[in-house]
């Protein structure tokens, strides 16, 4: 196994290597790997890695394809309309299915009459749901409804109808008669906390998490609708506040946001006696197979899940879901493939959202900025599910002497939440990062100086330095509310943190054919983040062929298992397995061509797209020409993810984002003019795709901060804006100027040393950065999202209480 060259300056490091080598476990060797940030802290560190691992990958500037902005591998399919999403699947004889949804927010179902629907010409099957998936589940099974699942929110799926045409299914769904025994309901968090509030569940209930996070703690106390608190205490917070020179305490509240992926949840299910095939709009082919196999008691080998293209998920698309189970049931019943995609309203109501939050955050600090105590008490609603905790940023962003967090879920009669891009973090950062700024004001410190004092992360330190030197930050007037007119300009920043998670169920096969073509196969799905391109780049680097010439076959459980794409794990988990497989396939390839080239395998190297003889037996020949000498049609290697090299080390990622806003103090409109975002994600495998995701994270975060809001009618319990015109999402005319800078950061953890960017992409910091910029513009704190004109005007009307104005 090759290692990178070690310069004389690193001789001391060599001693460390020698020391390490004496204790090297069998089957491993010590190698030097690049660690740190090029231009700032890059150095070499020793790692013990299995001898089967490929050579250490140099940093991006020394590579041909990895780390370069290769064209999106499937861009042509997407731009030409030939990309086939689950929504586009049309099979011969396929039926279209439509859900029947609950018309009331809380009820016991007395009876369901499907006879009229069944009689409608074109209707081929009706299925009534017996076991509902999603949402919290009662701990005491004896409390569960003995007949139909209890209705806990308006829009809950009850039954489904399959017909020859979509509009017939729609008509038939309306003919299903459901008789309800309605119960009192509650859709307001504050009311749901009251002792006499209607109970969403008759006893304690918990919700499992998914591959994308979400879910909530199990086994915590439950009083009425309040599930919690989940308490986390480190050190003595009470003492910490006594030790503090300054204490800042404030309340923040954030709304419910729906994922609103453009392709709705859905599947096409084809039940055959020996194989259930399901096309699914999912972030995890593995998770869909797992859940369907478990639900129907099928061996996993008899469930095949396919996701060739996927129209957005953002955390909400894991598992089979009710749509998956129902479509499979209807297909089994009718002997015909069944298409079941949710409509837009169902998408808003029943398949996930980002929970709300009401937070009380208290932070104590010494005069020098040192945090003596951090205390967060939060209540949030994940509807009839759990997962509204938001203590991540308060717990993990800064160094403190003591921590005390209490997270509570409050059940209401609304659809269950799901993991949503950095679960809990946009809410938590909105409170934390404004409080840190408030603290800086009280301490008479610059917001960046204070963060330099309390944030130990070495990468964010560099990121803050880049921000500090930027023209945008320099243009910030440290004195708030400096503009005289009614349009006030402000600049503010926020930080974000996310964590290195690895999904060990990440495997791939790489094949080399005698015609010189190479392909990679994995069940992993590309949810729009570009993993197809990244895998093509990994093979391109190994075999010296351009990425667009690599065949990428993914999104099918017929291939080796792939990770579920949640929590920014995909690239970090899968790319090393693919590189390992590519390396091993290349070694098999050399063994296969050696006889034809008249030499031994260990005389050969494959580098820069050429096969070379170390002993100069022949002139270097192109990979493709050498492949013609293979002694077999195909060589292949399969590899799965091995653990991180430096397992004891805990890595986080993040970024620092600056927002520039203009606040119209007469109309209450906030105009976000610009973001400058500096982010890290380990080794950026494809900088263009990474920046594209960060652009999107900032836009999604801004949209959350200013516009989006799931509105529930307190009198009837319905969502009043379950569409895309009254549920407001930022559009083309709202998009600010975006400038994103990546900080390459090597951590020496795997054969690609890559990480993910989905969560740490600005989505968690945008609202807080806008909040801090708003304060800089007006001298007023805004502690509620979305920051709509009424919210802004109300905040401004309290202007005399400007506690922070210098």
């Amino acid at each position: 196994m090759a290692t990178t060259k070690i310069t004389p300056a690193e001789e001391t490091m060599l001693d460390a290597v020698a020391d390490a080598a004496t204790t090297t476990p069998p089957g491993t060797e010590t190698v030097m790997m690049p660690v740190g940030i090029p231009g700032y802290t890059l150095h070499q560190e020793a790692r013990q890695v299995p001898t089967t691992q490929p050579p250490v990958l140099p940093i991006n500037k020394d590579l041909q394809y990895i780390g370069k902005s290769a064209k999106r591998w499937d861009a042509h399919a997407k731009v030409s309309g030939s990309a086939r999403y689950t929504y586009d699947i049309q099979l011969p004889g396929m039926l279209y299915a439509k859900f029947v949804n609950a018309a009331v927010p809380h009820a016991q179902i007395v009876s369901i009459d499907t006879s009229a629907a069944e009689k409608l010409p074109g209707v081929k099957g009706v299925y009534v749901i017996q076991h509902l998936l999603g949402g919290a589940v009662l701990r005491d099974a004896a409390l569960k409804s003995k007949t139909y699942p209890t209705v806990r929110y308006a829009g809950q799926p009850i039954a489904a109808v399959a017909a020859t045409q979509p509009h017939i299914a729609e008509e038939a769904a309306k003919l299903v008669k459901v008789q309800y025994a309605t119960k009192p309901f509650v859709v307001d968090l504050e009311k749901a906390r009251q002792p006499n509030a209607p109970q969403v569940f008759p006893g304690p209930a918990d919700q499992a998490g998914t591959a994308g996070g979400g879910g909530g703690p199990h086994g915590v106390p439950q009083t009425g609708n309040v599930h919690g608190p989940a308490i986390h205490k480190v050190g003595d917070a009470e003492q910490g506040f006594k030790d503090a020179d300054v204490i800042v305490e404030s309340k923040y509240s954030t709304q419910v946001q729906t994922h609103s992926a453009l392709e709705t949840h859905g599947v096409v299910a084809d039940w055959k006696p020996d194989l259930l095939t399901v096309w699914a709009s999912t972030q995890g082919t593995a998770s869909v197979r797992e859940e369907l196999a478990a639900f129907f008691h099928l061996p996993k080998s008899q469930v095949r899940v396919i996701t060739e293209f996927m129209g957005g998920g953002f955390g909400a698309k894991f598992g089979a879901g009710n749509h998956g189970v129902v479509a499979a049931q209807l297909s089994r019943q009718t002997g015909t493939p069944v298409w079941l995609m949710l409509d837009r309203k169902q998408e808003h109501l029943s398949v996930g959202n980002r929970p709300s939050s009401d937070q009380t955050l208290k932070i104590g600090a010494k005069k020098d900025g040192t945090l003596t105590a951090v205390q967060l008490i939060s209540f949030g609603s994940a509807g009839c599910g759990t997962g509204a905790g938001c203590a991540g940023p308060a717990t993990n962003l800064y160094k403190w002497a003591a921590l005390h967090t209490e997270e509570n879920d409050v059940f209401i009669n609304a659809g269950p939440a799901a993991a949503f891009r950095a679960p809990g973090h946009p809410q938590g950062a909105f409170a934390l990062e404004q409080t840190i700024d408030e603290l800086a004001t009280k301490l008479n410190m610059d917001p960046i100086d204070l963060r330099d004092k309390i944030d130990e992360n070495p990468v964010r330190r560099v990121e803050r330095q880049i921000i500090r030197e930027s023209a945008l930050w320099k243009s910030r007037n440290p004195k708030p509310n400096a503009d005289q007119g009614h349009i006030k300009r402000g600049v503010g920043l926020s930080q974000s943190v996310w964590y290195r998670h690895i999904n060990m169920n990440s495997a791939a096969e790489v094949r080399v054919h005698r015609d010189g073509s190479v392909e990679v196969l994995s069940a992993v799905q590309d949810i729009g983040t570009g993993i197809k391109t990244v895998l093509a780049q990994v093979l391109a680097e190994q075999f010296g062929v351009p990425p667009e010439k690599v065949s990428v076959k993914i999104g099918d459980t017929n291939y080796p298992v792939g990770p579920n794409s949640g929590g920014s794990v995909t690239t970090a988990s899968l790319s090393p397995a693919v590189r390992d497989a590519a390396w091993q396939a290349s070694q098999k390839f050399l063994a296969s061509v050696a006889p034809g080239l008249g030499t031994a395998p260990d005389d050969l190297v494959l580098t820069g797209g050429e096969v070379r003889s170390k002993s100069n037996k022949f002139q270097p020949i192109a990979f493709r020409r050498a492949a013609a000498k293979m002694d077999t049609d195909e060589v292949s290697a399969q590899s799965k993810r091995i653990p991180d090299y430096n397992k004891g080390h805990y890595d986080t990622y993040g970024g620092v984002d600056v927002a520039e806003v203009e606040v119209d103090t007469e109309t209450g409109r906030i105009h976000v003019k610009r973001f400058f975002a500096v982010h890290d994600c380990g080794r950026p495998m494809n900088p263009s795709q990474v920046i594209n995701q960060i652009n999107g994270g900032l836009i999604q975060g801004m949209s959350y901060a200013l516009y989006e809001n799931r509105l529930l009618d307190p009198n009837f319990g319905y969502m009043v804006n379950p569409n895309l015109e009254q549920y407001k999402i930022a559009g083309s005319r709202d998009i600010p100027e975006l400038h994103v800078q990546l900080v390459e950061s090597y951590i020496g953890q795997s054969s690609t040393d890559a990480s993910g960017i989905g969560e740490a992409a600005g989505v968690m910091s945008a609202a807080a950065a806008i909040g801090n910029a708003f304060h800089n513009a007006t001298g007023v704190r805004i502690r509620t999202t979305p920051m709509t004109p009424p919210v802004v005007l109300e905040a401004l009307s309290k202007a005399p209480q400007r506690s922070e104005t210098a």
Partner: protein
Amino acid sequence: MSDRKSPSEDAAEQSSSPQNSNNVATGISRRGFLKGAGITAAGTALLEGVQVFSREAVAATHSDVKELGPGAVPVTLLVNGKEHTIQIEPRTTLADALRVHMGLTGTKVICDRGSCSGCTVLLDKTPVNSCMTLAMDARGHHVTTIEGLPQNGEMHPLQAAFVKHDAMQCGFCTPGMVMSCAALLEKNPKPTEDDVRHATAGNLCRCGTYPRIFAATLEAAGTSTRNA
């Protein structure tokens, strides 16, 4: 949401005009319906359903307009330069005609009510939301979908620019975005960024690829090489 004007009214007018009486499937137009309803002022007839409504309309206009539906009727549409004759109910939207009846699944229906422009196609040179356009109203027009944008096997320069700038992530909004921008360039070959923002004001992208879309469209127009 979108500022654009739906041409369905114009389409209806044309399809019921004498010049178009040789269409494979002539019949009641939306305009015809409305005229009929207006003349008879029969509020009760409206409530009695489409069938009564259409009979009233026919009687009222005293024209040779044939009654169509309920039930499937043959309709010929000119899509991407080719004539397609399909059997559809008159209530079928253009989006469904394209996707379900012709297998042209590049066009996406996302909101199903004209607020996201995912289903944008061109009717002649005008962008329309095909989820809000009846297939019948597309008769007599050139319908262009994302599949029909390439010419002589070559990607439209806008498609090439979308690829170059990576103006997509999940790609689900991409066909609609490309069609809206293609319509813009047809009308205004030298747009500013504000023009592109205006042209895509009705197009929703949840992944947030807008900056790349602006850059790609400006480059395709040759008005800017600015990278997003």
